[in-house]
C-alpha cells in the first residue's frame, strides 16, 4: 500500500471517529432540552397565551412528548440525522435554514481570525525565542502576557471607543454598509473595513496563546540533541532555526490550533454581538435574549460539528507535518 493510500484510509478512519462524537453531542443536546423548564408545548402555549390543558395534552401527544424518554431520544436523533433541527417560533423559520443564512459571515470571521492568530503567533513566538532575553523578546512576551489576560469584549469596546468614537476611522458594526450597493472589489473592501476591529478583537487573545506556546516550544526544541548534531554538522544558527527547530516547534502549535477552534467559536458569540456581525454568534446572542432555546441548541450542535470537522482537518495537516504519525 502506498503512502497516499494509507493516508486516505487514515483520514477515513478519523472521519469515522467523528460520528460517535457528533452522536454524543446530539444526546447532550437532547438532555439539555430535557433539563429545560417546561417543554415545547409550554413554549407554544406561552406564544398562544390561550391554551386549555386538554389542548396541551393533545399537542403533547402529537409531538410524542408523552412517550417514554428513550423513544423521544430516538425520535430526536432521527430528526437531527434528517437535518431537522426544529423550528424557531420567534423567527418563524426552521432552525437549520436560519443557521445556514448566518453561517457564511461566521466562517469568514473565524477563518480570517484563525489564520492571523496562528501565523502571527508563530512569527512572534519565533522572533521572541530567537532573540531570547533581548528587548525584542521582552516586548513580545509582555504584549502576549497582557493580551492573554484581556477579555475579548472589552478589547472590542475599547477598539470601538478609539477607532470609531474618537478617530472615526472604522465603522462600529455590521458586515457591510447597508444600502451602499457596492459590488465587486468595492464591496470586498467595504467588508474588509468592517472586519478589521472584530478580527483584531477576536484574534488578540489567541494570538497571545499561540505566541506563548510557540516561544516555549522553540526554546524546548533548541535544547534537543538533534540541534547539537546540526551544529556539529557546521550549520549556521539561522539554518538550524529555519531548517530544524522551526518545523519541530510548530507541531504543538498546530495541535493547539485544533483545541482553540472550539474556544474561538465561543468567542465569536461575544465579538459578533459587540460588533453586530451578522453571523451565528449574533444569532446565538439574539436567541439567548429571546429565550429561543431551540435555536440556541441548534447553533450549539452545529458549532460542535464544525469543531469535529476542523479537528479532522488538523489531523490531515498533521499527517503531512509529522512522519511519526502512524497512518493506519
Amino acid at each position, binding site marked *: 500500500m502506498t503512502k497516499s493510500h494509507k493516508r486516505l484510509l487514515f483520514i477515513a478512519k478519523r472521519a469515522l471517529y467523528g460520528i460517535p462524537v457528533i452522536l454524543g453531542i446530539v444526546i447532550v443536546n437532547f438532555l439539555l432540552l430535557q433539563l429545560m423548564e417546561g417543554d415545547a408545548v409550554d413554549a407554544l402555549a406561552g406564544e398562544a397565551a390561550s391554551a386549555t390543558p386538554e389542548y396541551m395534552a393533545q399537542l403533547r401527544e402529537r409531538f410524542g412528548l408523552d412517550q417514554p424518554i428513550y423513544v423521544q431520544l430516538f425520535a430526536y436523533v432521527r430528526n437531527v440525522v434528517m437535518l431537522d433541527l426544529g423550528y424557531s417560533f420567534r423567527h418563524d423559520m426552521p432552525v437549520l435554514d436560519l443557521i445556514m443564512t448566518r453561517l457564511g459571515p461566521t466562517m469568514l470571521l473565524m477563518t480570517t481570525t484563525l489564520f492571523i492568530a496562528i501565523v502571527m503567533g508563530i512569527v512572534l513566538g519565533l522572533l521572541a525565542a530567537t532573540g531570547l532575553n533581548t528587548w525584542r523578546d521582552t516586548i513580545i512576551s509582555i504584549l502576549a502576557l497582557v493580551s492573554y489576560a484581556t*477579555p475579548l*469584549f*472589552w478589547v472590542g469596546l475599547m477598539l470601538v471607543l478609539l477607532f470609531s468614537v474618537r478617530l472615526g476611522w472604522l465603522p462600529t458594526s455590521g458586515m457591510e454598509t447597508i444600502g451602499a450597493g457596492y459590488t465587486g472589489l468595492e464591496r470586498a473592501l467595504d467588508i474588509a473595513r468592517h472586519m478589521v476591529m472584530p478580527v483584531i478583537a477576536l484574534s488578540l487573545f489567541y494570538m497571545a496563546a499561540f505566541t506563548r506556546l510557540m516561544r516555549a516550544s522553540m526554546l524546548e526544541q533548541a535544547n534537543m540533541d538533534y540541534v547539537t548534531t546540526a551544529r556539529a554538522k557546521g550549520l549556521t544558527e539561522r539554518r538550524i532555526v529555519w531548517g530544524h527547530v522551526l518545523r519541530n516547534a510548530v507541531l504543538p502549535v498546530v495541535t493547539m490550533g485544533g483545541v482553540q477552534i*472550539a474556544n474561538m467559536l465561543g468567542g465569536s458569540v461575544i465579538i459578533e454581538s459587540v460588533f453586530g456581525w451578522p453571523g451565528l454568534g449574533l444569532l446565538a446572542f439574539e436567541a*439567548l435574549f429571546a429565550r429561543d432555546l431551540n435555536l440556541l441548541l441548534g447553533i450549539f450542535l452545529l458549532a460542535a460539528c464544525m469543531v469535529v470537522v476542523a*479537528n479532522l482537518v488538523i489531523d490531515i495537516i498533521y499527517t503531512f507535518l509529522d512522519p511519526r504519525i502512524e497512518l493506519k
Partner: protein
Amino acid sequence: MTPSASTGFWRRYSRNRSAMLGLVILLSALVMAASAPLIFPGSPFALAGQPRTPPGPEFMLGTDTLGRDVLAGIFHGARTSLMIGVLATLVSLSIGIVVGGVAGYYGGNIDNLLMRLTEFFQTIPNFLFAIVIVAIMTPSIQSIIIAIAIVTWPAVARLVRGEFMALRNREFVQACVVVGMSDLRILAFHILPNCIAPITVIGSLMVATAILVESGLAFLGLGDPNVMSWGYLIGAGRTVLRTAWWVATFPGIAILLTVLAINLVGEGLNDALNPRLRDR
C-alpha cells in the same frame, strides 16, 4: 511540605520579580474584595449620584447610566469574580483529579473510556457550552460555577492522568506495591503529593480562565442578577460608550489586572515548584 522545602520555595518565588508583582496585584484585589462592604456599605446597585457623572472628585471612576458608583461596583465585583473563580476552579479540579487519577492509575479500558469522555467534552465549544448551560439552568452563582467547572475540567483530567500514569510506572511506586501497600495508600501518600506542583499551577491558571469566562457570561447578560460583577458593569457601559466611556473602561482594567496577576503568580509557582520536580 517540609519547612526547609517551603522556605526554599519562597526564596525561589520571591526572586522572580514578575511573580512578585502578580502577587502584589492579586493581594490588592483580595483586599478590595474583603473591604468592599466596609468602604462601600449598602448595595452596589443603589443610586449614588447623578447618572453619567464623569470621573472626578465626587466619584473617582464616575457613575453609570443609573447613577451607580463605578468604583463601588468594581469593589463589589471583585468579590464576585474572585469567589466564582476560586469555587469554579475547586469544583473543576475535583472532577478533573478524580477522572484523571482513576484513568491514569488504572489504565486499560477504564482509561480508554474516561479519556474518550474527556476528549468529547473538549470537542464541545466550551464558552458556547457554558452559555447554553447557564441559559437553561437560569443564571445564578451556582449555575455559573457549574457551567465553568463543566467546561474546564477536561484540561485538569488530562494533566492529572498524564502525571499519574508517569508516576504509576515510577519505580518508587512499584516499590510501594511490592511492599504490600493498598492502592488508596499509594494514591494518597505516594502519587498525589508528587503531582501537587503541576496541579497547583494549572489550578491557579484556571482561576484566571474562570474569571474571564464569568465576565464574558455577565457581559452577555448571563450573570447572577443579584450580585454585582465586572462583566455586568462593562455590559451596562456598552450602550453608553459614546457618552460615558468610563463605565465600560475601568471594570475592564480591573479584569485585565486581576487575570494578569493570577497568570503571573501561576507562572511564578511553576518556576518555583519545578526545580524540586527536576531533582527528584
